[in-house]
Every structure is written in structure tokens, then in C-alpha cells.
């Protein structure tokens, strides 16, 4: 049974909520201003709840099972994060309240800035960017502004061919030209190609490390040197930071500016596609360009008391907003995805330094273990020790099934498929990121499913091509969707 649309459940006159009376003498509504009709659905609360509960049951989430979607770090998100983020003292504060009425929020943000600086090895952090892609855009704009200030006309950004699509898109949005750098046979940046493309036009390079193949570039320090030598700056896409927590600091490996991806590394739930959060960290030379406002801490003469008569005496500081002097400006309304920041703060506080390192270690251990098992069945894109993820080639000898078919068949085994067809440089890519929260038993079960699927690919390929068989719907016609473009109900 497919779930009806809200408009199909609608009955004129129904309402899914109770509302207060106006309660004051009415002021006439100005003529010509009032809309004739408001074609929203009219459903009762019970129908509404059932509708969305049923819809939710058609979804697969991390709480349902293993979700090894490469590059997305679909780790389990501790429930305490949700409790933390829903405390009314946080959720019910307005972004324009005077600083002295929101010291709790500001302190939390300040601490988080400090944590991220320490974890990434950067001089300063702005929490404003809304997601990874916005972090990239921010970083590129900062690099641009830096060169502009020096009167240098640099309009090229170098990007490896393995990079995520947001990297070139963010560069283009900043008005810069993208030049692609090849990868070598081991999955590293091809140093020769890099050298060839370095010039005085280069504003910088965007590098994801570990890269989207799950590999730590074996020449990272050299790359940084080459880029810096030609006057460029190195941008770090921190989508894969989960491999590096407590293992290495990007700021110490040559990155000048870098985005963290809180919804990946710092365990905030992905929300069906967002919200995320993409704070940016940078070295001292770039810090004046950070977007703002950021939080600063000033020693207070007296311990500030809050409005309710409590004094928070252990903390004799006052937290306030500040705008970096040469800031590229705001990239977002208000200050960032505060609710997401609370979750990330909670996570870091609960793990501490040793816990974070354990996260990275187990993420990498899990990926290598699973890689070893998967390798028995599927070819790896690069047969090397990996970091937190790896890419397998979704082909089976003696069968013409594709990565997509394998993915859809995994659904029947109760798993979410890996990322497909990315990175683009690996044909039929299956990009597998187990994350540290998964147990050995889960990894074993997943590897076993892949083994069986490879077998099926040879013996009953149709089973794969028609998969999934145990999902709420069968394969969907994407061509029809794009052709007909039904983007809303006809209300």
C-alpha cells in the first residue's frame, strides 16, 4: 500500500491543531492585501500523525541498520546529543538577544571554537558555515581576499580529479577557474601534473585528505610545499577528518584553511539530507578573513551574573561577538547551525582526547578489516592500506551486473548500499565507509552479503537487476521523473 499524499487526505473544514482566540479588538485588514485562497491541506491530527509515521517507516536510517555510505561518515549518533540539543534553554533563545542574556550559548560556542582549533591545529575557527560546501566556499573566498589584499591577481584553483563535486562548484561560485590535477596510479595526487599546473595564476589548491579513495596522500607535505612555493594556499576539505582525529592535525601538515564537517566527524545526525555544519579553521595569516561574527572571551572584572540571579562563578569571563577585521563578511544569517554545534560540543566533551583518537583508530581499523574481507570478492580500486573508507569496483567476472545492481541487492540483505559511482575516476565505484561505531559482527555480515551477491551475480543476475525485492517500492523510473517533472501535487 503506498501512502496517500496529504492533499488526498484533506477534507475541507478539518484542522490538525488547536489555536487560541485573537483575544483583542480587531483591526480592519487593508483592502486588496488579503489573499483569496490558501490552498493548504486540511487534515486532522490523527491523520497527520499516521501519515508521517507511515512515511517514516518507508525510510532506512542509521538507527535501522548499517549505512556504509562512503564519504558521508554515517556513524551512529549518540542519543544524548539529541537530549542536549533540545534543552529549552538552548532551543528557545533568540539570535538577537543581548550577549549578557545568552552567556551559556556563547560560552559553548567559544569552547567549541577552541576544541576545533586544538583538534585541527589552526589559529582560529569560525562556526558560521552551514555545511561542508559552504565551508569550502568560505575558505576559497578567504584565499581570494588574501591575494586581493596583496594585490595579486590569482584566479586558478587546482583540484584533484578525485575531488567531490562541491570543490569545483564552490570554486566556480567564488569566480575562480578550476584546473583539474590528475591522480597517479597509487591514488595520490600526480606530483608531476601538479607541478605542471602550478603558476603565478594559482590562488590555491583544494585537497581532500584522506582523499575520496580513502587514501592518505603519500606526498602530502610535498604537495603543500609545491602549492606554497608557487604562492598558492592549500585548502583542506575535512569531510574525511574522521580518520585523523588525534592522529594528525591538518594545520600541521600544510593546510592553510580547512573545513570541519560536524555532521560527519562529530556525530550529528544527517537529518535526511541536513542540517549539517561546516566550521572553518585557518592559520594566523588567514584568520582576519574569517566570516563573522565569532565568539571571543574577555576576562570580566566581576563574575557576570545571569538575569535569573544565579551567578556562574566558576567562569569569570564574559563572552561576546567579534567581527574579524578583514572578514569576507557573513556567509549565513546569524551565527551558524547552533543546534548542530550543541551536539558536536556534547560529543567532543564526552569523548575527550583519548576517545577521539579511539574513534579514528577504530574507523580505520574497521575500514581495513572490511576492505580485507571485501577484497576476496571484489577488486579494490587501489589495493593499499586504506584509511576510514575504501573503494571497490562493482563488477563481477562472468557477469554483466553493475555497481548499481549490487547496491540495490544489498537492500534485500537489510543493508544500506555504499556510495555508488563516486569518485568519478573509478568506474563502477562502490565506496564503502563502515565508521567506527559498527561492530565486527556487522562488518562480517555485510561482507558475507557481498560474497553471496557476487555469487548471485553469476548464477542469477536477473535477481540483482530487478533488486530490490524487499523494499517498500521497486526500482523507480528516474527518466520518467525528469521528463514529466511533477514537482508538486496539483492542489
Amino acid at each position, binding site marked *: 500500500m503506498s501512502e496517500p499524499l496529504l492533499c488526498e487526505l484533506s477534507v475541507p473544514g478539518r484542522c490538525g491543531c488547536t489555536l487560541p482566540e485573537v483575544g483583542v479588538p480587531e483591526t480592519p485588514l487593508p483592502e486588496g492585501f488579503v489573499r483569496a485562497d490558501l490552498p493548504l491541506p486540511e487534515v486532522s491530527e490523527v491523520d*497527520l500523525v499516521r501519515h508521517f509515521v507511515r512515511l517514516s517507516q518507508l525510510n532506512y536510517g542509521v538507527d535501522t541498520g548499517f549505512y556504509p555510505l562512503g564519504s558521508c561518515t554515517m556513524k551512529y549518533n549518540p542519543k544524548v546529543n539529541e537530549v542536549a540539543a533540545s534543552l529549552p534553554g538552548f532551543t528557545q533563545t533568540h539570535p538577537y538577544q543581548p550577549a549578557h542574556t545568552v552567556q551559556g550559548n556563547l*560560552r559553548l560556542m567559544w569552547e567549541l571554537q577552541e576544541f576545533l582549533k586544538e583538534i585541527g591545529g589552526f589559529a582560529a575557527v569560525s562556526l558560521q558555515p552551514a555545511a561542508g560546501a559552504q565551508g569550502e566556499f568560505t575558505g576559497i573566498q578567504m584565499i581570494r581576499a588574501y591575494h586581493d589584499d596583496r594585490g595579486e591577481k590569482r584566479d586558478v584553483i587546482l583540484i584533484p580529479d578525485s575531488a567531490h563535486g562541491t570543490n569545483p*562548484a564552490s570554486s566556480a561560485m567564488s569566480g575562480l577557474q578550476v584546473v583539474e590535477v590528475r591522480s597517479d596510479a597509487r591514488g595520490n595526487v600526480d606530483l608531476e601534473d601538479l607541478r605542471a599546473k602550478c603558476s603565478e595564476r594559482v590562488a590555491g589548491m583544494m585537497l581532500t585528505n584522506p582523499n575520496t579513495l580513502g587514501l592518505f596522500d603519500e606526498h602530502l607535505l610535498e604537495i603543500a610545499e609545491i602549492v606554497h612555493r608557487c604562492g598558492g594556499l592549500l585548502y583542506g576539505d575535512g569531510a574525511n577528518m574522521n580518520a585523523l582525529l588525534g592522529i594528525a592535525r591538518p594545520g600541521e601538515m600544510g593546510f592553510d584553511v580547512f573545513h570541519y564537517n560536524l555532521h560527519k566527524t562529530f556525530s550529528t545526525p544527517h537529518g535526511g*539530507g541536513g542540517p549539517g555544519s561546516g566550521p572553518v579553521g585557518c592559520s594566523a595569516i588567514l584568520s582576519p578573513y574569517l566570516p563573522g561574527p565569532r565568539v571571543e572571551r574577555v576576562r570580566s572584572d566581576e563574575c557576570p551574573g545571569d538575569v535569573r540571579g544565579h551567578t556562574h562563578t566558576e567562569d569569570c569571563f564574559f563572552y561576546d561577538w567579534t567581527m574579524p577585521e578583514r572578514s569576507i563578511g*557573513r556567509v549565513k544569517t546569524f551565527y551558524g*547551525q547552533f543546534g548542530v554545534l550543541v551536539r558536536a560540543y556534547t560529543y567532543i566533551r564526552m569523548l575527550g582526547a583519548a576517545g577521539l583518537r579511539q574513534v579514528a*583508530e577504530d574507523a580505520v581499523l574497521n575500514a581495513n578489516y572490511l576492505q580485507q574481507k571485501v577484497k576476496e570478492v571484489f577488486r579494490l580500486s587501489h589495493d593499499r592500506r586504506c584509511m576510514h573508507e575504501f573503494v571497490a569496483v562493482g563488477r563481477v567476472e562472468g557477469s554483466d551486473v553493475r555497481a548499481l545492481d549490487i547496491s540495490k541487492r544489498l537492500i534485500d540483505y537489510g543493508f544500506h548500499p555504499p556510495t555508488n559511482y563516486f569518485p568519478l575516476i573509478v568506474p563502477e565505484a562502490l565506496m564503502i565507509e563502515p565508521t567506527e561505531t559498527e561492530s565486527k559482527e556487522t562488518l562480517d555480515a555485510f561482507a558475507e552479503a557481498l560474497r553471496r551477491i557476487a555469487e548471485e551475480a553469476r548464477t542469477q543476475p536477473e535477481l540483482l537487476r530487478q533488486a530490490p525485492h524487499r523494499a517498500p517500492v521497486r526500482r523507480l523510473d528516474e527518466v520518467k521523473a525528469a521528463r514529466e517533472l511533477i514537482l508538486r501535487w496539483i492542489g
Partner: protein
Amino acid sequence: MAYTPHTEAQRREMLQTIGAESVAELFADVPATCRFPELKLPAPLSEVEILRELRELASWNASAEEFTCLLGAGAYHHYIPSVVQTIVGRSEFYTAYTPYQPEISQGTLQAIFEYQSMICALTGMEVANASHYDGGTAVAEAIIMAANVARGRRRRILLSPDLHPEYRQVARTYLRGSGLELLGDERPENDLDALEKMLDGDTCCLVVQTPTFLGEVLSPERLRRLAEAVHAVGAMLIVAVDPISLGLFVPPGEYGADIVVGEGQALGNPLNFGGPYLGFFACRRDDVRKMAGRLVGQTVDAGGRRGFVLTLSTREQHIRREKATSNICTNQSLNALAAAVYLAALGKQGLWRIAEICYHRAHYAAQKIGRLRGFEVRSTRPFFKEFVVSCPLPVDELNDRLLEEGFIGGFDLSQTHPHLERCTLLCVTEMVPVPEIDRLVRVLREVTR
């Protein structure tokens, strides 16, 4: 460690399978000089302890749960029906990611399709996308879209000075390096007539906001004429709008807007100190291929049953890379889900009622405050839920007094509008009970004594 399930024995077993001696060995590619830094972070806390700490931090804030909130200016304290959290709190929704695998993501996909549908209904537009980061970035992306529609041949972007100051700032950040010129908002007196006069053949788009940042509702009739003028020069009209106001007022789609955007927070999302919110974005069907962001479309499955998928991804970064309409990837899906549940819960009658309450209570409050000595209501045109009041003392001082009386005061306009010194922007929603309005009036009267 509750979040990394391995026991030491299991780790050893796994290392053996891998053929490594130690976990450290797995990190051999990391430059030795940088490997294993000592992170200086506070000692780890257990659940009991972290929640105690966070409750303490939260208690340092003055929240709209304990105080009566008169602050708006782009983020609003509206009622959120209990069903919204019930649904948004279902982990099948919040622990999923972007619905790349539609067969096991119909929940998210259909919900977003319904969100798109209701945003269209609300704005009177033909298509809406799956969300932007917030109102400010939606405005910026709308401008970029207009520039793309004009194929880069038009270079002037007219911004109304009554557009939210932060939206204008975000637009400027987004358009650095684009070669586009943003103007129109340099003088606060630039009203619609002045902006209309600035239109020319090089104008790419004009961005206006209604209700304006100062709360005033622009006349649909006037906006219709403006749209005609904009279209006459071949430009696009972008309208930023408070979605709650659309419960009552003529939607932009009816007076010729080409792109309608706005901050969607008020639709079922808590204040949350500024985020996560969502930007909504709607346009004409003809322009959909220039639109940024994700789109959900209806289709059928192999068995012919209705289903939903992400569509037109050829616009997006993961396919089009540097030629994409935007770099956006992760968006505000869960906030859009909240908005969908909110709009469905309120529905036709409910949203009308909420908008009505705001309108009438705000006017009631303005009327009473306007009669107080020393206070003057500066909003004249019809306003929605916000209005400007000039005060007999600096607004920050007034707000401190109000705080003592249990109110979170209005937005201090002297921060953003130097010509509105000692002016506060007060916001009255359905969350301000009538007796609290009356109490506010009494408190304000006291202040001038």
C-alpha cells in the same frame, strides 16, 4: 566507550585479518613528524555529567520559554504544534541522509515532495526546491539564479534597503568575485518608487521584502505594478517574504514575482539561537533548470506504483561540478520536514488564524504603546507582526529594564539603521498572550516615570 563497540580481543583479531601488528601501523602514511599529537582537551564526561554541565550552561541563558519574547527581526517565536517534534524526532527521518537510494528513502522523498507542494501553495509559485541553508543564502542564490537566467549579460542587482540587513550582507559575500554590482540599498529612503526608477536594461533583478525588515506589508497592487516595470526592462523580481504572513496576505506569485524566497524558520522550527533554519525557494516552472538545490519529483516504480526520486540532478554539483547552478550539497532537509509537518498541522484554517492573531495583537499593542508618553509608533503603512517604536531612552537600556520585568525586548534598530536612533522593532506573535501585552504597556509606562 559506548560508541566504539570493539573489545580489545576483537581489535587484535581484526588486526590479524588485516595482517597488521598494531593499529598504529595503519597510519604509516601519515607523516611521522605530525603523527599522534597530544590533544589538549578537557577530560571526558559521562552522560550524567555532560547533561548536568549543559543544563547549567543552558540556565545561563534567558529563554523565550521563561521570558515573553518581543524580539523578531527575522527569527520568530511562533507556536510549534506538538506533532512537529513527534515526527521530526522519529529516527528513521533524522538518521537517514540525502535520499540517494530512493527505494529505501520514500519517507524523506515524499515528505519533501509535500513540502515543495505546500511552499508552492503558500507562495503561489509553480516549483519549489527542497531547501537552502537559510533565508539569507536563499536570497543570494536567487540573485545568482537571476544572473544565470540572464546568461551573465546583466550586471546590476537592485536591493531594497528594506531587505533584512543580514540578507544583504550574505548576498554581498556570495557575489564577491561575480562581477555583479549590488546597489539600491545605500540610502534607507530608497522606496519602491526610487527603486523602480533605477531599473534599466542592465538590471538583472530587483530584490524586495514584504513584510519589510521593519514589519510593513507592501501593497500587492503596488508590487504588481513594480513587477510589470521590472519585467518591462527584462529583469526578474525576487521577493523575500515571511511565510507566516502568507496565511493572510496576497502571495507573491499573484503579483508577478519571478522568484520567491524567505526564511522558513517560523514554519515549525524553534529559535535555536539562529540555526538550524531553512531557506525556502520557489520560482516559475520555466526557470526550473536554472534553480539551485535539490528537487524531488514524482514517478512510478517497476510495478507501476507511485514513488518519488531526486530529479534534475544534472543541475547539481555532484554531476555538473564547476558548472553546477550552486555548490549546495547537504541542505536543511530535517527543517524542511518540520516545515511540512507544521504547514499540514495548521493547514488552511490554522495558518490563517495564526496570521490573524499576529496581525491583530500587533496592532493592538502598537495602539496602546502609541498612546504612552515618550513612545511613538513609527510604522504607518499596514504592518504584520512587527512595528517600529521610538522610545524615550536608548533601546539597550530599555531592554535591560524589560528583562527585569520578564520580557525579552525588541530589536535595537540603532545597530542597523542609524537614522532610527532610539527605535525598537517590536514583534508580537501568538506566543504573546493578551495579558502580557497589557503588562508590557504598564511596564513601559513605568519606565517613563
